[in-house]
């Protein structure tokens, strides 16, 4: 048999990896998400050692590594510490479909939060000329009956007009 010529045609397959998942919130994130859903309140937990707030709360202080089980309400207003305006459409890993752009995200230092920790969420303003660090912003909640105990119970943060 003559030597086999290697193929010029290069085969590839496209596929979508798609499967259902279930996540337990755990007690701390569960308490935080339920407060969003039932009371429209944003809860931080406070480190008993360094006194810094974490929002959303985590089981231990990320710096001191001690259990942090004291909760305090923060926000819903705060100060914009950083932001991103996204023009690049990437796949949303929840659906596999490209996201709509532009959208913006914000790092907000919520009022009452201690130690400079910021809270990451969507920002309802994609015009970069209107955005700067230090702006006052506030959380806008989903209406009653539509909140599910998820991040999206806060729809977004919006700029407080005239706020300084």
């Amino acid at each position, binding site marked *: 048999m003559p030597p086999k010529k290697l193929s010029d045609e290069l085969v590839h397959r496209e596929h979508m990896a798609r499967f259902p998942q279930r996540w337990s919130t755990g007690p701390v994130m569960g308490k935080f998400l339920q407060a969003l859903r039932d009371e429209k309140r944003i809860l931080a937990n406070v480190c008993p050692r360094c006194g810094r707030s974490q929002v959303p709360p985590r089981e231990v202080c990320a710096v001191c590594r001690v259990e942090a089980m004291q909760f305090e309400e923060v926000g819903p207003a705060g100060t914009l*510490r*950083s932001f*991103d*305006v996204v023009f690049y459409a*990437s796949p949303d890993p929840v659906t596999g479909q490209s996201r709509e752009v532009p959208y913006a995200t914000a*790092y907000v230092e919520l009022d009452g939060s201690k130690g400079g*920790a910021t809270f*990451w*969420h969507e920002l309802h303003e994609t015009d970069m000329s209107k955005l700067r660090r230090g702006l006052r912003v506030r959380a806008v909640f989903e209406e009653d009956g539509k909140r599910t105990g998820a991040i*999206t119970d806060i729809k977004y943060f919006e700029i407080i007009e005239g706020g300084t």
Partner: protein
Amino acid sequence: MPRKTRPVAIVGVGQTRHSSHREDVNQPELVHEAVRLAIDDAGLSLSDIDAVVTGNMEMFEGTHQPDMWQVLGNGAWGKPCLRVSTGGTTGSTVFCAADQLVASGLHDVVLAIGFEKQQEGHTTGGITAMADPLWARHLQTGALTGMAALEVIDEFGLDRARRAAMRYRVIMDQHAAKNPNAHRRFNLSFDMIDDLMQKSPPLVGELRLIHMCSQSDGAGAMIFAAGDRVASLNRRPPVWVQDHVTVHREETLALAGVATYDAQGRLETTTQRRAAEILLARNNIDKPVEEIDVFEMYDPSAWWGLSWIRDFLLLEGDEHLQMVERGDIGIEGRFPINPSGGVTATNPIGATALLRPLEAALQIRGDAGTHQVPRPIRKALASGFGGTLWTVLMLLSKDQPNN
């Protein structure tokens, strides 16, 4: 300083040509190219390899247990093989693991491999999928962020910051042009800066396509050997692993980790600066710019690369901007950074953080070819980046360390 039972040297390196597309090979075949080059470079044969450490990014290629499949090409058949996956730092963690396997006395000769076929998945989607599903998955855009740009702009003004970032990018591209293995080579020049600032497509905030790292297919391999084996492996001069350090931030939320700001509104100490403080102090390096000869930095974007010069070299104020503006970081400059072209040129992510010490080792050996820094290199720094801004910082030396 962590104690080593015995000194460890890098005795062989190999890498593929990096490209946006490698339809002609599957994953084991891609990895095989780098492995064979490294074994040949060391003058060894497959039977000399005692163990293999390999790594890549999770979720990038959509294949399960790549370490096992890749035994078809990676040289691990019948040998201890360990897969490491620490996000963007993977390649550097592979480096550290291989060094430790030899330093501990467990194995004499260890092969370290990093690879990625980004053509097989969606990089930004994959990174986003790694974020906390209850929170950050709704918000994250992979590793794309304009926040680093925002920091530099707020501190130094829009025009100076934009020009410095683009100047950094042009220098990297000029280096990549000298490196035949580099993926993106645009032949950029400084007179194009105004045009690029206007026309390169925006990705996130002030981060434009031209600033961001590429999505590459490629692999790299390094061979580590116990110091007492080096005399019998004298094909090329050994490069000694002097030290390395890994610094993490909390792995919970965002690219900014715990984004906390000090009283001046600046992000608190970065893992880059923290890693440099630890590594340089315990190796008695007071003036890194003078005592280190070259730096291969994992620069995921021109903005981060620009900003991290200050942190890694423990500089203050605008010294890092001045270094870029003066051209100090060029291949013939006072402190060359990324003579390979770095990560904005070439980014097969699972390999990227291994390619940094690999390129640094080539510089020390004098084997970097057309992108060799034109003066003797005795000490080289290399960094890895990943996750919520983690850092691995590695120090390589031409001289055998005393540790």
